[in-house]
């Protein structure tokens, strides 16, 4: 039996089970999206696969009734944890009018849902970083005690907006958590041809904030460091930079073919550390994820995904002329 690590972090058995359920839900939605794409039913998929642990670990470390998240396109785990439903995700995948993220104006993965404090995002990478700083600034001005969590890929940490946003947060000691999901690739470019530093967290000192690199396949490690960062933020101690290292298990997107630039062996090796397996094993070895629970969970999620798929597939497209709406306030 493995050592119980989550208790020390203040997490109950129910909570870790819930974390696992969300990770698994994200994975299953993602897998379904690929099937639908290959069947010609949805035009585009971009995956969370391999990053669910970091996403759900981070989300659980926040106050999901108060804090703001600025996810990037892979963060299905974050947005499910923050309240987006599987049906809503499927509506987005099928580009249907009811998609709450964008009313089917944006591709899937471009999350946004105000009622859940999921801040609308775009395609050009890293633009959300200064937004997270601005939201934290607003909170500070209004004497609120929320924090903002912004995520992005390791490649995206090379954009100027990362640098400018991080320094701004550092100077003004704002409660922002910058979390890099280092999945070792930016499309075809491996991390060592993307970044000259050893760890992305090495950049933290340049902005006067602490930096941590953690195992992104371990939701508990991520939970712990994000929890501390959120506390620092709420205490007025400023921002934190966190790097969660995992691996991108799929091609970059449904338009990509990763066999042209990386070896199958490398991917297979990474699959062994897949958090769905490793965190599942942790929970199994502690008898938290029992056979019964697992069976039931699988069934529930599958039902959810099936229903959502059916619903979304049959849902109506937006009216053509609705393309004219909401350029400005109406």
């Amino acid at each position, binding site marked *: 039996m493995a050592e119980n690590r989550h208790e020390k972090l203040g997490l109950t058995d129910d909570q870790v089970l819930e974390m696992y359920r969300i990770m698994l839900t994200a994975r299953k939605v993602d897998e379904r999206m690929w099937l639908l794409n290959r069947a010609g039913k949805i035009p585009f998929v971009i995956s969370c696969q391999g990053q669910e642990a970091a996403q759900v670990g981070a989300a659980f470390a926040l106050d999901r009734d108060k804090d*703001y998240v600025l996810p990037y396109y892979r963060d299905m785990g974050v947005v499910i944890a923050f309240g987006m439903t599987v049906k809503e995700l499927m509506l987005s995948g099928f580009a249907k009018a009811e998609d709450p*993220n964008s009313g089917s104006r944006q591709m899937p993965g471009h999350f*946004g849902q105000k009622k859940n404090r999921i801040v609308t995002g775009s395609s050009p990478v890293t*633009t959300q970083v200064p937004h997270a700083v601005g*939201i934290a600034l*607003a909170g500070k001005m209004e004497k609120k005690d929320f924090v903002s969590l912004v995520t992005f890929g390791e490649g995206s940490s090379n954009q100027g907006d990362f640098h400018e946003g991080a*320094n701004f947060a550092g100077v003004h000691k704002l409660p922002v958590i910058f979390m890099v999901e280092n999945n070792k690739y930016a499309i075809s470019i491996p991390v060592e041809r993307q970044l000259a530093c050893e760890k992305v967290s090495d950049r933290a000192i340049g902005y006067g904030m602490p930096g941590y690199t953690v195992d992104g396949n371990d939701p508990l490690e991520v939970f712990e460091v994000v929890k501390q960062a959120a506390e620092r933020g709420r205490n007025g101690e400023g921002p934190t930079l966190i790097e969660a290292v995992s691996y991108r298990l799929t091609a970059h997107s449904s338009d990509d073919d990763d066999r042209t630039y990386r070896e199958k062996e490398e991917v297979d090796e990474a699959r062994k550390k897949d958090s769905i397996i490793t965190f599942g094993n942790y929970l199994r070895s502690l008898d938290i994820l029992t056979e019964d629970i697992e069976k039931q969970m699988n069934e529930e999620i599958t039902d959810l995904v099936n229903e959502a798929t059916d619903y979304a597939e049959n849902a109506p497209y937006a009216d053509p002329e609705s393309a004219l709406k909401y*350029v400005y*306030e109406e």
Partner: protein
Amino acid sequence: MPVISYIQAVTQALREEMQRDEKVFVLGEDVGKRGGVFRATDGLYDEFGADRVLDTPLAESAIAGVGIGAAMYGMRPVAEMQFADFIMPAVNQIISEAAKIRYRSNNDWSCPITIRAPYGGGVHGALYHSQSVEAVFANQPGLKIVMPSTPYDVKGLLKAAVRDPDPVLFFEHKRAYRLIKGEVPEEDYTLPIGKADIKREGSDITVITYGLAVHFALQAADKLAEEGIDVHILDLRTVYPLDREAIIEAASKTGKVLLVSEDNKEGGIISEVSAIISENCLFELDAPVQRLAGPDVPAMPYSPTMEKYFMINPDKVEKAMRELAEF
């Protein structure tokens, strides 16, 4: 009514909006203790403190981007770009983000930010402290671009910009800052963004312009009036999206139209004005729609000889008006 300068109108508008609404705050380079390099935020730091008159690091994309984040949260940020020329690092935040936030979220989120910047030449500012940059943004639905010519318009439109639910770029002519003075009421007022304004009624020729050039046109019109040429002057005030009705009406009124801009000629605001007229007023026109603008060189040089050659001025406007009147 008190007479104040163009830049005083900026400061007054900011002060009053900050007094009116706690969610309004100012951010930018040197806007705090220094009160801005042009002193547009003079006194605000003392009145509202460092938190609401926020000196930022030297990084325009962050100034815009942090402001956008705060605006999405529900604040009313007024970001200053120290010179319009230095808005370029923030283009991605303005075009990809501010302009598209409402649309891309299907009206779930919005971005009520105002971005102010001094633009324009004739101040020995050389290539990078003289530019007109409006054309870069004047094709981005979701944005509004305001370029006022008088203290009255500045104050009313800046207040309207701060209260506007969508992003507004507010470009102030830096040579107008101290040169142009005018009456401004003491009571609170706003002016409608998106509406052009007739600055002079006339019946012989129509001049459509904006910014400092409005004053050049008014001066030239006074001269031509002595010769019996009666000039109608429309001040666009909002250069994007344009006030089509006002343009069509002004062009149709005289059938002879001169468009004036300080910016380079090709691809400027007045090209769109011309296209609107062409689409709608062809059979009202008595002469080709003329454009008077800067030459198509990158920007105005530093040397006084070349700067003067580039800049439009009352004489150049007068000459173009006379030619059109005589057409």
